[in-house]
Each structure stands twice: as structure tokens, then as C-alpha cells.
């Protein structure tokens, strides 16, 4: 399967929320659930201002923390996208804690996040959000083509935004959403260096082996699993925080 990616051109997005609405209707999301949130950003003081919109959504990380910690395989990688099979989600909430971008939410006791419109794409269509974006701020396709498009857009806006850059090519092991940023990531409320490797490594090498026996059970008995898994998870979190503290000390 080809590796796909989204293009998200933050410099071009005008905050209209057509993407949010198209996603909600196309995916029949229940009231209160949104896979994309537009958050107004303002920098400076009147009248010397800059601003735009943060487009908060699943970034489909290549080394996805949520996938690494998901004990049931509900979250998985496919074609560059971070997919979700809600049917096998046990509701353990590992993913909500692990995601460095705070993306997965719990809806009706199960994980809920952008599934990259996998069914639509499989049927030959385009993700709903991409299809409707009036600003051409969103695209979807082959990761290499998307990356090239992002680079050419950055080149085109350099005069207007000297600090313009591509984000997501390598950050956090590469994101499935390649962004065109008009400014430095920190300024736009994005981590300059998302700390995913530390988190995931800690998790995989230290924390999960310690509790794996119990978590394995959850795959079999989903009903009870959430409770057990949640309890395990609380222990794991404690361990994790210890590891993090260690890491901090050693800095």
C-alpha cells in the first residue's frame, strides 16, 4: 500500500470550519464530537498584530505513540495513516494519555479520532475535509507528492513570511500531516521537537513489559478489560512519570 499523507497549509487556512462540518456530516459524528478544531491565534498587541488558526486534528504520526501503546490493535498504521477500528477498542484510554498532540477522545467509552476517511478513500473518494476545503489548505495523496507540494508552497510564501517552513517531514519521526507553517512552530502552538520518541521508548522498553501479562487478557474479554486495563494503566502511568522524572534529572 502506498504511503499517503495530508497537506495542511496553515498559511492558507482561513478558519472557515468547512472541514470540521464536512467531517461531521460525512462521518455521521455524534453531537459533541469533532475531529478537527479551529482555534484562533493572535500575537502582538493592537494594532501590531499577527494571527491565524491552529488546525487541531490527528497528525497521523509515522511512529504513532497511540499505536505503540494501544493494547488491542484498535489503533494501527496503514498506508501512512493512523487508523482506528473502534470495534476492538477496549476503552483503556492509553492512547489519550500517550498522544503528544492530545488528539484521541473517548466517546461512548471507546476511542474516537480521525480515521483518515479510510472507507471513503478505499471506495475511490477523497477525505471529506479535503474535498470541501475552499482555501485549498488541505490535500491528500502520495506522501512524496504532498511533500513536494508543501515545499513549493513554502517557497512561494517566503517573501511574505520569511520564517515559513515545512513541518512534519521529520518531526516526531515524520507526520502523516505535512504542514506549511508561516512561522516557527512554537509561535503557532506546535512543539518544535515533539518528544514522542522518549515517551514511546520509555513505554515500550520499560513500562509495558512490566504490565503486559495483564493487558494481554483484555484482548480476550473486552467487557472486563476496560476496567482491568484502566487499573493497569494507572500503575503504568506512575511508572512512566518516574521514568520521566529520571530522564529530566539526567538532563
Amino acid at each position, binding site marked *: 500500500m502506498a504511503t*499517503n499523507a495530508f497537506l495542511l497549509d496553515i498559511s*492558507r487556512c482561513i478558519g472557515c470550519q*468547512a472541514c470540521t*462540518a464536512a467531517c461531521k456530516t460525512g462521518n455521521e459524528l455524534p453531537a459533541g464530537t469533532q475531529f478537527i478544531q479551529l482555534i484562533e491565534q493572535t500575537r502582538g498587541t493592537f494594532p501590531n498584530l499577527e494571527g491565524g488558526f491552529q488546525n487541531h486534528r490527528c497528525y497521523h504520526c509515522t511512529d504513532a505513540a497511540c499505536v505503540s501503546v494501544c493494547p488491542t490493535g484498535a489503533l494501527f498504521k496503514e498506508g501512512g495513516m493512523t487508523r482506528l477500528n473502534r470495534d476492538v477498542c477496549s476503552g483503556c484510554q492509553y492512547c489519550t494519555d500517550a498522544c503528544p498532540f492530545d488528539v484521541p477522545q473517548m466517546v461512548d467509552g471507546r476511542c474516537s479520532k480521525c480515521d483518515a476517511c479510510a472507507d471513503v478513500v478505499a471506495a475511490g473518494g477523497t477525505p471529506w475535509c479535503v474535498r470541501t476545503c475552499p482555501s485549498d*489548505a488541505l490535500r491528500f495523496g502520495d506522501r512524496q507528492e504532498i511533500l513536494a507540494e508543501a515545499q513549493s508552497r513554502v517557497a512561494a510564501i517566503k517573501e511574505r513570511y520569511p520564517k515559513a517552513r515545512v513541518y512534519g517531514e521529520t518531526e516526531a519521526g515524520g507526520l502523516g500531516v505535512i504542514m506549511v507553517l508561516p512561522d516557527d512552530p512554537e509561535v503557532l502552538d506546535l512543539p518544535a521537537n515533539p518528544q514522542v520518541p522518549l515517551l514511546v521508548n520509555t513505554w515500550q522498553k520499560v513500562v509495558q513489559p512490566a504490565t503486559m501479562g495483564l493487558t494481554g487478557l483484555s484482548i480476550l474479554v473486552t467487557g472486563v478489560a476496560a476496567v482491568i486495563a484502566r487499573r493497569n494503566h494507572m500503575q503504568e502511568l506512575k511508572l512512566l512519570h518516574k521514568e520521566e522524572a529520571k530522564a529530566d534529572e539526567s538532563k
Partner: protein
Amino acid sequence: MGKVQLQISRRTFLKSALAGSAGLAVAGGHAIPAVAAPEGSAEPPWFYRGQIKTTYSVCDMCPWRCGITVQSVGDRVYKIDGNPADPKSRGMLCARGQGGVSFMYDPDRLRSPMLRTGERGEGKFQEVTWPEALDAMAEKLLAIKEQYGPESVAVFGHTSGEFWFADYFAQAWGTPNAAKPSSSLCTSPREEASNLTLGFPVGGHEPVDWEGLRCLTLIGSHIGEDSRNTVMQDFAKAWGRGAKVIVVDPRFSSVAAKADYWLPIKPGTDTALLLAWINVLIAEKRYDADYIAEWADGFDKLAAHVADLTPEWAAAITELDPELIRTTARVMADSLPQSLIMPGRHVTWYGNDTQRMRAAYTVNALLGAYGREGGFYFNKSPYIEAYPHPPFAVAGSAGGCSAEPGAESAELPVGPSGKARADGARTKFLRGATAMQELIEPMITGEPYPIKALIVYGTNLLNTVPDVPRTIEALKNLDLVVAIDVLPMEHVAWADIVLPEATVLERYDELWTVAHKTPYIALREPAVEPYADTKPAWWMARELGMRVGLENYFKWETAEEYINTRLQTIGSSIEKMREEKGIIVQKGKPYFADFKGSSPFLTKTGKIELYSDELALAGQDPIPVYTPTEDPPDGFFRLLYGRHPVHTFAKTQNTPLLHELYPENELWINAGIVAAQGMKDGDRVWLENQDGARSGPVKLKATERIRPDAVFMAHGFGRNEPALTLANGKGANDAQLQTRYILDPISGGAGMRVNFVRIVKEA
């Protein structure tokens, strides 16, 4: 074997339903293997639940009316997408358009015709049958006609079914008192300024030739917040190409954040800025001199008029840096003639709005923008014959943004008993489409003659017309009030007869004919049956017509018959239009070359009239003059209002999907003021205007994005109708705080940005 084939055909079918125009996946032909419908406990996605039916229609979630494809399975609509064949949507939609399904399935919809049982305004009704409701309406209308003449019936129409009542029925019945809020409460100044200056109106779709545009100037236009789909698309493309953007706005709007130059102007002073720009263009000889020599009239008078109106003069008025004024004039001139000021849409601001618009068009003329590639194209209406009805009892439509371009004649049309419009045209104001707010007065005073009945089609009366207390008084005075609507908007409680309408996804409508660079015609067909006991407007207008002696106008029995009769005149039919994806595109005449030597300007001089004899004769300024508007008193802020990208008018606040995305409006207020007054972001406050009218509570949005002398809120919130279960009581209501307006003496527009509010902490 059979199974495989089924999968293939389903997949092909899905492809046509799901494939869009945007995105690399489809454009690049990315073949990703199809998966079968997901199995297991969860319900499969809607597009696997059965055969998808695609219906071509036209969105009605805002007045822009993008072409849409409506996807339904069985008797349920699931998704609306942009129709790729449509020149406006081009396959995309805004958030509101996406919310069209949610609008239709709003559980608060009106379900049945009703007759009033309690006092008017009490909102007590009994459900009745359609014949009962229509018989009652017909009887009352005929009695009023008998006693006062047909002109005593006013018809207010808004949204895309307005044609059947505010145009077709009103003209057949014989009242010149049909009005649309899209005129005097929105675009009249922009249209009349264009008629006076260029000899033709702007028309619904601002004729910006976006493809080659190199410099865009916006004055109070909020692209992105005003989320007209096509404009957002065109703006994004032009911006992406590197076109310069100049935004004049007291507020750092979404589009101001994309601008190369933002001019945070003092509200109400735009004409001073425009005159200073004209001064720079002329003084520095940066205007298109050849173009002006060939196509403009009155240049010398204009040059003399602005000789002293320097950036320094304007700076003192506008509170802008004079160098910024000078620089932006030069930036505009650097890109001429691919440089222009966009007319914008809602321009009824201060009561001198026609003059401001004429000043903007003067800049555009100096930039040589009209009729030039990358400037303004000349739009053209599509060719199609009207339905062959007998001559109307009163000709001349109510106007409005969907009106056909037409010259203003010296004589106002009169009704069968010899009465012209009661809105004061030619006395209180000079010209233009019927002024809705001026029809309220005769309902109260009986002058110049009484208006006794009001049919309100889709107009959100109490959230649209300024001076709500006066409108309430008028409602109490009338002999008959009929409300035709989809939802129980506030004024519905004041009706004697309520007629519930089917939404656009459930009905046929008049063809949508669009004056455009490529004139086109769009078809609206129903995707599903009307909800409960609702009916389309064409059916209601016809049934009513048959009951009041207008049978001759309603020889057609169905909307299909009406539409097909019209389509026949261009060799088409509903059937053929379906095959052509619901759209017929014709050839336009966009540039000078297409006029083969004759002038495209339809003024008396055949030129762009920088100096207007017509205005001089009427005692108005022949060249725009800056007239100051009153400043807010101490402790008060000027109340500005506008749009949020997911809402339209006062129409969508109760639509579940859109309500979720923006449930209540906020009061934008300068962060420094909030801190100085000991308040904080998110505080809930009440607003009181200069006349003591109150609205709230509303959340403070403490922001650097607005000047300290003004506050801003999205229009359409702060609703007072419990039957609107989601919208009721959320936020503040700008219309309630607009107890006054200033009448534009030229166009009849109601300038509404002349209200001031102060913040009070409790109700």
C-alpha cells in the same frame, strides 16, 4: 461470481458519489484497493447502506446559492457536496452548506399549517389543514383588497423561495409593496452607486476577475468570516499567487490576518480614506490616464474636488498613519489595472453609504479596473424566457440581490388602484429597490396610505429590520399577518396564519439564473419528500392564487411544468439538465473587446460618471463628500456586527450541527478596556444601547483584535423564542440593540452602525 460483480458495481457507484474535484488522491489517480463494507458490530458508513441517489440542487444556507449534489440513501439525505459542474461551488462547500442536512432534520421545524387562537403575539395556535389555512388567508386578503386596494398588502421575502411570493404572487396580485431585506438592509447602496456611476448594478456575484487580480482591497469585507464559498476559493488562489491584500477594518478579521496592509480605521470614516486615496492617485499621477480619458466623465471636477484632501487631512479623521494611506494608494496603483476595491455585500452602515460606494468605484475607475482582465469583468445574465404568464398587475420586482439588472425608470410602478410604493421612494429617498424598513411606518400611521396585511416569507422580521419596538407596534396594527417559514422564528408567534415550508432539499424552485462571467442556470430538485405537513412555496403561492382570482397566472399545475416551459425556450428540459449535472453554462461578454466598440457603461454619458449630474439635480453631492457620523458618547462603544463562518443571518443558529460549532456569540472587545474596567475574558455581561434597549447575557471576548472604540458580535444570536430549543437565550441580539438607523437619502438603505452600547454587569 455474482458477489464480485456486485462489489465492482457498488464500488463504481461509490466512486461517482464520493469522488470530489479536490485532492491528489483522485486527481493523481491513486488506486487504493477497495475494502468491503466494514463487518462486525458497528453500523457500516452511510454510503454502504444502500443505493446512493444523487440529486442536483442549489444550496440555500446563505444567499450565495452554490450548486450542490445531494446524496441520499432511501428516504434519508446523508451528505451534501459541492457540484463540480457549478461555477460557484466547483465541488466545494462552506460549513453552512455542509449543515444543510442538519437544517432539514432540525426537530424544531414547523410541521403543520396553523391558525392563531390566542392574542396576536402570544404564540397560541391550532393546527389546521392546508385548505383551511389557505381559505382563511384568501378570504382575509380579498376583504382587505375590497376595502383598501391590493396595494395595502405588503409582502416581505427572503431566501431562495422568495420569488414565488415577493415577486410572482406580489406582481400578479398587484402590490408594489414587496420588499427584500437583501436590498435596503444590505446591498442597496452598493447597487445604486453602481447604477449611478457605471449604469448597471453590481449584481449578486461581485464581478471580480479573480484569475489575474494582483491587488485586492477590502473595506469592511470579511472573507473567511463571511464564508461565501466561491469568494474564499478565489481569495485563497489569488493570495497563494502572491496578490497584494489591503484590508481596511476596525477589527483584525480573519482576512486582515492574511493582509499585507491592515488599516485599523476609525469606524464611519471610510469615505475620508477613499478621498485621500483618490488624492494620492491623482496628485502623484498614478492613475490610468488613458483609461480615464477614454471611459470616464467628470475627471477635472474630481481632481479639483480632492486637491486638498491629502493623506494628512484624512489621517486626522480616520486615525490612520498618513504614510500608510499614501503607501497603500501606491501599492494599489503599482498593480493597476489588476487592482480593485471589492464592493462587498452588506454595506448599509452609516446612512451615507451610496456616497462611500461611489468613492470606492471612483478609485476603481482610476485604477482602470472595469472591463479589464484581472479587474472587474462585465457580467451578463443568462438567456432564458420568463414563464408566459399574462402581464402582471404591477410590473417591476421588489428588487433584491436576485433581481434582474434593470434600469431605474423615472416613474415608479403603480398598483391597480393607482398607488405607487408606500416606502417613500422619491420623497424620503431617491431611488432603488423597495426599502423594507420604510414599509413599517405606513402600517402604523396609514401614511401615505394604510398597509393592512403583511405576508412574511422567510424573512426573519424581528432579527432583521432595525427598530424592533416599531415593528412590534406595526404587527399589532395589521389586519392580517401571515408567516411562511421553516422554523418558528420570533415573528411567527405574531402571525394569524402560519404556513410551514418544505426546505430546499424537499422541493422544486424557480430556476436559479445567475449573471456571471459565464452566465448560468442551475436546477433545484427535491431529494426527499417534504417533512410532515410542509409544502413548497410554489405550491402555496399557486393554491393561494387560485383562491383569490389569479387563476390566469397559475395555468401551470406543477413546478416541473413551470420549469420545463421556461427551459424549452433554450432547448432544454429538467431531464436534459439532470444529464448535464444540473447546470447550463452560457457564454458571457466579460471585457471591452466583447462590446465591439460600443460602450459597456449604460449611463447617460456612456462613461463612468465620476461627477453625477443626476445626483446634482436631486440636490445630492455629485462627487462624494466625507460627512462625519456621530461618535459614541462617553462610556459607550460603537456596535459593529457581522458574521461567524458557520452561521448565516438569524437563520442557522438553531441548526444542530452549526449550533454545535458556534452555539452563542461573543462580544469582541479590546483587551485593554476589559482589563481597565476590572473585567476578564469570558465574563458574561449585558449590553444596553443609547435608548436603553438591553440584550444579553453575552460572553466577553477580550482581544487585541479590535479598536478600543468599538465592539463587535456575530449577528443572529440572543434569540427570544423557546420553540427554537437550541438557539433560544444564547448570546446577545444585535437587532434588538439597533433601535435606530439612518436612512441613506439616495438608496433608501438603513445605516445600522449608528448604535452605541455600554456594558452593564446585570440584567
